[in-house]
């Protein structure tokens, strides 16, 4: 018994490390190891199978000269920018409106939130019919007597990217609303009461006290939304199939198509690496502030 003590003590001391060890291993291999692996592949001429014949930056040059890639990155900037902006604006406005002691708040909240529960595949399928000119909104409005009404964005290669925005906002804005509502409920009530006693008006209270305290929520909503935007692979697949032509492709679709269906593994890997670079540009400032905030 006596000589067992130190061992159990040692075990107890290292328990936290032991518990974390498998996760540590997984993170190092399946995130960082795989990123390096993909990076290595992006410098090879791998096609259907990996070939370890290094070709330098050839795949990246090929990528930059690829029209389909150019279209997909441009689409991501338009889609991502509008999607994030509209979701944040709608989310905060709806959260503030719902926070005014609304009767049936829970019921309304459920309605706004439910699209978040649905997969982009289902969302895409639903909006595909609604946006289909000969079946959906255009036809409905024409049936009402406005025979000149045109809403054909889904089949218009210039406008199709806005269809992605409509469907994605419909799906995600309710969730952003829920995040903001949760944030609003967390605001210090005493401070608001004190401000009211001082005679502050409602708009002033929102501008000076409530909105500033929602800054972290804005931040996390922004990060979650950009994450959704960058991985919107399924929405494109279901809503437009990337078409007309490849006019509504996003980088994620480009990567999937080249790596898994068109046997261009090297090019696919290169496009994945460029996507990672884009994410890092957003992520590093966020991680920095997250970790710095935690230390305080």
């Amino acid at each position, binding site marked *: 018994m006596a000589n067992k003590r130190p061992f159990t003590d040692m075990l107890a001391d290292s328990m936290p490390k032991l518990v974390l060890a498998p996760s540590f291993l997984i*993170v190092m291999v399946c995130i960082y190891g795989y990123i390096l*692996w993909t990076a290595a592949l992006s410098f090879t001429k791998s096609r259907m199978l990996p070939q370890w014949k290094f070709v330098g930056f050839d795949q990246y040059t090929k990528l930059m000269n690829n029209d389909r890639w150019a279209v997909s990155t441009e689409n991501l900037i338009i889609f991502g920018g509008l999607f994030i902006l509209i979701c944040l604006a709608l989310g905060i406005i709806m959260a503030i409106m719902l926070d005014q002691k609304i009767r049936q708040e829970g019921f309304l909240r459920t309605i706004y939130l439910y699209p978040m529960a649905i997969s982009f595949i289902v969302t895409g399928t639903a909006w595909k019919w609604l946006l289909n000119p000969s079946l959906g909104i255009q036809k409905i409005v024409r049936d009402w007597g406005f025979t000149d009404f045109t809403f054909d964005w889904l089949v218009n290669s210039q406008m199709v990217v806005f269809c992605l925005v409509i469907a994605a906002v419909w799906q995600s804005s309710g969730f952003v609303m829920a995040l903001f509502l949760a944030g609003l409920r967390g605001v210090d009530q005493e401070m608001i009461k004190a401000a009211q006693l001082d005679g502050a008006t409602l708009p002033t209270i929102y501008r000076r006290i409530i909105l500033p305290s929602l800054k972290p929520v804005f931040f996390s909503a922004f990060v979650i939304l950009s994450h959704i935007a960058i991985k919107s692979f399924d929405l494109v697949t279901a809503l437009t*199939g990337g078409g007309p032509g490849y006019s509504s492709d996003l980088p994620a679709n480009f990567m999937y198509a080249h790596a898994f269906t068109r046997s261009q593994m090297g090019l696919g890997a290169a496009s994945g690496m460029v996507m990672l670079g884009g994410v890092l540009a957003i992520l590093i400032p966020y991680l920095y502030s997250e970790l710095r905030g935690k230390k305080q």
Partner: protein
Amino acid sequence: MINTHKSTPMQKLLRFGLYAILIFMAFIYLMPLIVMVMNSLKDVEEIRSGNLLALPQDPSLAAWSKAWSSACTGSTCDGIAPFFLNSFKIVLPAVAISTLLGAMNGYVLAMWRFKGSELFFGLLLFGCFIPFQVVLIPMAMTLGWLGLASSASGLVLVHVIYGMAFTTLFFRNYYVGLPRELISAAKIDGAGFFLIFWRIVLPLSPPIIVVTVIWQFTQIWNDFLFGVVFSGVDNLPVTVALNNLVNTSFGGKEYNVDMAAALLAALPTILVYVFAGKYFVRGLSAGAVKGA
């Protein structure tokens, strides 16, 4: 939240406007669902000749039963029922394992910090946000070597690995907000690692468990990317099957069957939100938002 005691006619008008906007928004959010339900009850002819917003003249569940058990999804014509089952086989273990792992990791990272644990958290946090495109090819190869390619357990593994970052983040940020004294008192009393977790931390965890389970359930049920890349023909999750069904160009387009199938695929997660949505929002307020 903000008390307005007196209400002038102007305020009454504002309130009326507020309700009008909120109800209008609710209609917008509901419209796609209503359209799908109504049209899944029509027959194809009625959809083609009529209006999407028109009520079904002769509602029938024929499209639903076809979508469930006999519609063609690519190579097979057994409806989406088998894929529904596949999804459950993937989702249930993946949610359970990733939540448990997240709770243990979060517990260590919040309450048993050691040298390097913060660095690990930073490294892990990064994993929440990488575009999965950057790990797909190596993962596909690894699953092949492990003999798990195209298997349900392979998909479970993938979902656990890439869901772990989020679940750990949720639990850690929640546990950081718990009073430190609770733990330090227990440590002084000689309680060990697991005893503290089991007796003190876990009983305080239901809000964050609900958030995590709902989040993981919807993420994994709704996943398409991993499903389409890693599952072979036998283990397709329902999202992939739905996409195949909608894009199968075999004979005429059966819009009603497509809509019924889409609704069936969405049903489990919609039910979760309708019945547990308030716990989800409550859990978010309880702490998931603060640190995330």
